[in-house]
């Protein structure tokens, strides 16, 4: 989090984490399409020739003046593919909130688990844990045929029992709800930290 007292800006960083092809970039693309340009910056995507995220996607949401303050939310995705471990670690640094975008398909369970372990490992390296950071789960691709039930995924992935949403990010289903929830959790967390 960054506070610029002169401009009364409160800027927070939210990172979308998860395995490759789980729909992190799709989440940001939908959010970008839903918000008027007056309230958001451009969506920048650093992609490979195959359209896979190589470093990160980034966009900023700017709210109007609220009690004289100007909240800004910087949204990042991490590259999901296994070999971009360094990029993930870098982008995760000093994040204020996390959305874990899980792929609901049965043959992707191990990738989800690997990504979750990778996330926790990177947080520990930074002196934090999953329990310290506002977190929301999004079970994506609910429209595909070979998927696990939400109950099963909850049992295997959401061991901290944080809020979760079912989603079909390609159609925008569950995307906005996920974003609103993580922002709410982040603001509550900041309030707690500032009062501490």
């Amino acid at each position: 989090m960054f506070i610029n007292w002169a401009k009364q800006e409160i800027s927070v960083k939210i990172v979308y984490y998860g395995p490759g092809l789980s729909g992190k970039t799709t989440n940001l693309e939908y959010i970008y399409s839903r918000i008027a340009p007056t309230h958001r910056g451009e969506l920048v995507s650093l992609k490979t020739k195959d359209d896979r995220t190589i470093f990160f996607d980034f966009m900023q949401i700017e709210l109007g003046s609220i009690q004289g303050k100007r909240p800004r939310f910087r949204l990042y995705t991490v590259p999901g593919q296994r070999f971009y471990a360094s990029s993930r670690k870098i982008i995760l640094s000093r994040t204020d909130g996390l959305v874990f975008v899980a792929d609901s398909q049965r043959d992707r369970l191990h990738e989800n688990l690997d990504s979750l372990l990778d996330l926790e490992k990177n947080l520990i390296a930074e002196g934090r844990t999953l329990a310290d950071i506002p977190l929301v789960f999004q079970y994506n691709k609910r429209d595909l045929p070979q998927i696990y039930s939400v109950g099963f995924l909850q049992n295997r992935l959401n061991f901290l029992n944080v809020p979760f949403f079912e989603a079909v990010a390609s159609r925008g289903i569950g995307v906005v709800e996920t974003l609103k929830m993580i922002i709410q959790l982040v603001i509550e967390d900041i309030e707690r930290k500032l009062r501490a």
Partner: protein
Amino acid sequence: MIPANDKSLPKQPVILSEEQFLQISKLIDALRGKLNSRLILFGDMDGQLIAKSGEIPGLDASIFSALTAGDFSATREIARMLGGQNSFKLHYHEGIQQHLYVAAVSDQFFVSVIFDPSVTLGMVRIFIKKTLEKIQEVIESASREEEQVSQLIDSEFKSLVRDDLNKILG
């Protein structure tokens, strides 16, 4: 790029007081005048744009800052791969129409200067070095507003943010 001592990033919120912001803004304005630079950005290593001087039409300074921070982060990993715990203190990119010089301030912030090829690199280095020293002093000076920070967010603020998000996201 010059290696610098690597320090772990602080986990506490970064708070810049009004006085600090104004002083830094003045310093980068002065630097831009000396170097006849088109644009100077001051941001944090987390990608947050803090202050800017000048304008380049069509250039989104927020994205520029996020990419610059990413650049520093990526080269920090390269520095680690080269051995030791070092990171790089400055980056220089030479273009045809304009050059880019980015320097780290205390491993937490950066100053990014876009300048014309007619300005010599030596001059850029000297003026940036002096400005960085002054910015460092400003950053290290105590923030008077810290005591008021606990009052920054209250339940009404949270509810107003929720309302505003509902408006822009539907």
